[in-house]
């Protein structure tokens, strides 16, 4: 069979979103790959220039549908940096708790999609089922299932609902039980290991050079987690370990995410224990001063950065968003070349694609 180009996307079950992966195959082996994004470009950065600082929060929610809370949180961090707003400690703890719930939900969604990619329907169903637990918690917190609009500049929108800490602890217990079950299902499955081990190698140097962040970077053996290394919010006071794995393959990325879910459960327990009393929101000024604001957080998918330029009005002059997936996708050819067509799903699924944030 001669070499041929195959378009995978924009409508393809592998893509989990809306992008196009062009691969050149020789029989079943990939000899070249070329990702193409932009099918979901909405012009968010331009839209933000026409909205006031508070109106932008719902839009940043819609950046990534898998973990919308981290993005609105990041936006609020950035604007607080610009305005110099001091956030009450209780609000910080509530935010951290909500973000970690969001992280678990996002990783579970990834796990479900990954299992479905590998053809393991039971994994898809179980992941989606257990994700609902955390979606319910976040829904109790904010009133919405997917795009929460919960953080505000200078705090959060509401206080914790009644008995929320009890529910959060219960959810953690449930999740830890289920995580053990998942590890039995996945690590115990020989076929799963055959599909993952040694697939999609991304060496440490390549990962560093290509700007890959988040679980793919930690799966390549670099122990770098913004929550630990450049702590924001109250992560300094919380005891947890950034997880990494030296194997550089799909299994390492899977392992890192599973371990992160364990760590997130730990973090939620600690925030419940340490939750201070007091105000959960301060009033932020309407207009931002001239200057720049910068914020970055550890998104479930990697390093998310925002850079905002204020010009003294109530609307940002420029808002720049750095999405982790946008850069990670550009590293995809490095991982894909030399593997089989069937490995595309394992490799690209292992990156946890969320194209909404990449295209903005």
């Amino acid at each position, binding site marked *: 069979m001669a070499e041929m180009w195959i378009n995978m996307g924009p409508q393809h079950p592998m893509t989990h979103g809306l992008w196009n992966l062009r691969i050149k195959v020789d029989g079943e082996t990939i000899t070249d790959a070329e990702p193409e994004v932009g099918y979901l470009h909405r012009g968010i950065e331009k839209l933000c220039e026409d909205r006031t600082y508070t109106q932008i929060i719902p839009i940043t929610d819609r950046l990534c549908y898998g973990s919308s809370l981290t993005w609105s949180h990041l936006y609020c961090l950035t604007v607080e940096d610009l305005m110099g707003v001091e956030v009450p400690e209780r609000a910080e703890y509530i935010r951290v708790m909500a973000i970690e719930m969001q992280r678990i939900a996002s990783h579970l969604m990834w796990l479900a999609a990954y299992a479905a990619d590998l053809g393991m329907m039971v994994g898809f169903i179980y992941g989606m089922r257990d994700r609902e637990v955390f979606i319910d918690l976040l829904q109790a917190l904010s009133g919405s299932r997917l795009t929460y609009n919960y953080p505000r500049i200078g705090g959060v929108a509401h206080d914790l609902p009644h008995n929320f800490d009890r529910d959060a602890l219960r959810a953690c217990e449930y999740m830890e039980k289920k995580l053990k079950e998942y590890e039995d299902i996945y690590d115990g499955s020989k076929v799963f290991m055959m599909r993952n081990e040694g697939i999609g190698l991304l060496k440490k140097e390549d990962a560093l050079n290509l700007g890959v962040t988040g679980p793919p970077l930690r799966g390549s053996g670099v122990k770098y987690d913004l929550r630990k290394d450049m702590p924001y919010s109250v992560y300094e006071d919380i005891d947890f370990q950034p997880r990494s794995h030296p194997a550089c393959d799909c299994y390492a990325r899977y392992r890192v995410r599973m371990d992160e879910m364990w760590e997130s459960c730990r973090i939620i327990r600690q925030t419940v224990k340490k939750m201070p009393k007091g105000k959960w929101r301060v009033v932020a000024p309407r207009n931002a001063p001239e200057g720049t604001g910068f914020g970055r957080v550890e998104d479930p998918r990697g390093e998310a950065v925002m850079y905002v330029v204020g010009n003294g009005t109530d609307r940002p002059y420029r808002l720049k968003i*750095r999405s982790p997936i946008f850069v990670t996708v*550009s590293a995809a050819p490095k991982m894909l070349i030399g593997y089989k067509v069937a490995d595309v799903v394992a490799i690209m699924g292992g990156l946890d694609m969320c194209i909404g944030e990449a295209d903005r």
Partner: protein
Amino acid sequence: MAAGESGRIGPSIDIERARTRIDEEPEDKVVRRLMERFQATISEPAMLGKGRVRIRIDKKDLFDACRYLKDSLGFEHISMISAVEYDARFDIVYHITSYQSKLLLELITTTTKDDPSVDSVSSVWGGANWQERESYDLMGIVFKNHPKLERILLPKDTLYHPLRKDFR
């Protein structure tokens, strides 16, 4: 550290002090070594909080500075490349991270509106490749020596650069 604390633009670094101190903070060290090397083109160094430094650099030394940062100072990760349009100029802001010394360097270079072009740093950091394409696509900054400077987010036949202020 709460987000609000890290906020404001910090005091500018005393360059003379930075040059002479031996037991320096990592921020000082980076600035000092950059200043030694690119004395003529670096201006306005500023501390923006713990682990965050801002430096302006002239665009003709940008590539060399980036190469130097990557190879000698251990800044192995480029976080973000953003272009900001002002009335008479474009600012291109490079956020560069060092994993070991936990530093963030905000490197700003300026280009004119008539000829919005700077050197591409995608040969230094592979991660800059798509970000530069994106800046070209949305803002119209031309990155010289870029391996494949094409539109990435918008369709190939688009005529405008939407993030410019004169685009409505």
